[in-house]
């Protein structure tokens, strides 16, 4: 081998050594060299050096989360980096989807990461479902009466306010019913509070059997109840009230070894054009209830 060839091979060898030791050598200067096998090796080394430099740069960009780096896939490592780039882009999109509430996203083909990521999404969805369930339960507790399960005063007043505004805006009608169980205190005193509770539960259960789904029954006091009947005028409300009165009069509540019977007094009214606010409607229903009580009880009075 000529001395000059040995020098050229030395340069190539030094270049490769530098590459293997994380240095960035300049490309081999092949100008003026004769066309032979050693020059061809030098060209290969330069091509490899450029590809390696490009891949190193791309790997660095990906490692710091720059997913837009251009990757020249001249070596198999480039193919894998491009695959990784596509995976990271898709993962980024999937993360955005999960943030939007799409918990159907799953990661595949990434080994342990897929397992952990998918488990995380499943857990997030489980937490979300649990919180939704708790919210529903809190909503239920905040809006219902614990003894009977019917709505409480707060919910009923909210609903009545909305119904009043809606009916006024669209010139619709609604009716309000006020009810009071007759001599409830006597039932409590004679049979105890447990029996009183059974009477109240039987009362609301019977009312619900008479009412439509759109009607809203609420417990507004100890033995006082209100009903809002959307899209219902005076005649319709009277029919409902009378059905309730009759059903309660026929009701027999079994308590221990006794049968309890009781009645209800009912006041009925409907929205009138001159009503300035919901208070006017409810006041009228209260007045009707008062008349029913004073008129002998177990009655329906309209106002």
């Amino acid at each position, binding site marked *: 081998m000529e001395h000059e060839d040995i020098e050229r091979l030395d340069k190539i060898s030094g270049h490769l050594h530098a590459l293997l030791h994380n240095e960035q050598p300049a490309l081999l200067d092949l100008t003026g060299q004769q066309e032979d096998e050693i020059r061809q090796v030098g060209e290969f080394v330069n091509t490899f050096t450029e590809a390696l430099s490009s891949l190193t740069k791309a790997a660095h960009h990906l490692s710091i989360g720059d997913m837009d780096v251009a990757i020249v896939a001249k070596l198999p490592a480039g*193919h894998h980096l*491009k*695959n990784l780039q*596509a995976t990271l882009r898709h993962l980024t999109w999937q993360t955005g989807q999960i943030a939007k509430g*799409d918990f*159907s996203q799953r990661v*595949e083909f990434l080994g342990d990461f897929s397992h952990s990521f998918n488990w995380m999404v499943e857990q997030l969805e489980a937490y979300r479902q649990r919180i939704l369930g708790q919210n529903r339960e809190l909503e239920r507790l905040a809006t219902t009466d614990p003894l009977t399960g019917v709505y409480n005063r707060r919910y009923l007043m909210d609903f009545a306010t909305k119904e009043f505004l809606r009916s006024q805006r669209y010139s619709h009608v609604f009716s309000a019913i006020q009810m009071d169980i007759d001599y409830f205190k006597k039932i409590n005193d004679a049979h105890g509070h447990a029996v009183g509770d059974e009477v109240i539960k039987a009362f609301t259960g019977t009312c619900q059997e008479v009412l439509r789904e759109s009607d809203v029954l609420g417990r507004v006091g100890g033995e006082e109840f209100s009903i809002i009947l959307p899209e219902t005028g005076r005649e319709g409300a009277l029919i409902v009230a009378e059905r309730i009165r009759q059903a309660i009069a026929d009701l027999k509540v079994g308590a221990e070894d006794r049968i309890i019977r009781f009645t209800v007094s009912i006041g009925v009214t409907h929205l009138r054009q001159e009503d300035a606010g919901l208070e006017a409607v409810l006041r009228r229903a209260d007045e009707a209830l008062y008349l029913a009580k004073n008129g002998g009880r177990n009655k329906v009075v309209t106002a």
Partner: protein
Amino acid sequence: MFKEERKSPQFDWSHLGDIEWGRPNLGPQTAVAVYRLMQFTLRDAIISHTDVATANRIFYDAGLSAGKAIHEHLLRNTHDFDRFIAELQETLRTFAIGILRVESSDLLKHRFVLTVAEDLDCSGLPMSDELACTFDEGFIAGLFSAHFGKQFTARETDCWCTGDRVCRFEVVLVDA
């Protein structure tokens, strides 16, 4: 039905026939190689008789019809984009067409970037520095056009044949 002259596409899902009835023993599956044999011999013949641009146009338009037909017959035609993508991913997986993934989606500008891995058309083909998935371009454009009820176009930007391991498509609304 198949050999009538026509100036516009007349493909109908019924042209696929009753495969279950017609292939009681062999069933509905075939090899990927057979699909590619059909695709590349057909491309070869079309280029021989016409030119590359014509072949590309034919493959794109055929893909467009196929995408619309798949949308009409195999997807539930939901208006929700996320559900559309989820159904599409499942359908492409079920029929071993490819593994679809979304890299970006802009529903306001109607611009999307998708990738398809293990693509039926090209994964494993020899390197050629050519974007090979013209049928897929039309196919994706057809799916998006059918979903949004507007005309979309899809362009392949990376392909197995150009050294990538996934095919990447940019999908945009025509005249957006």
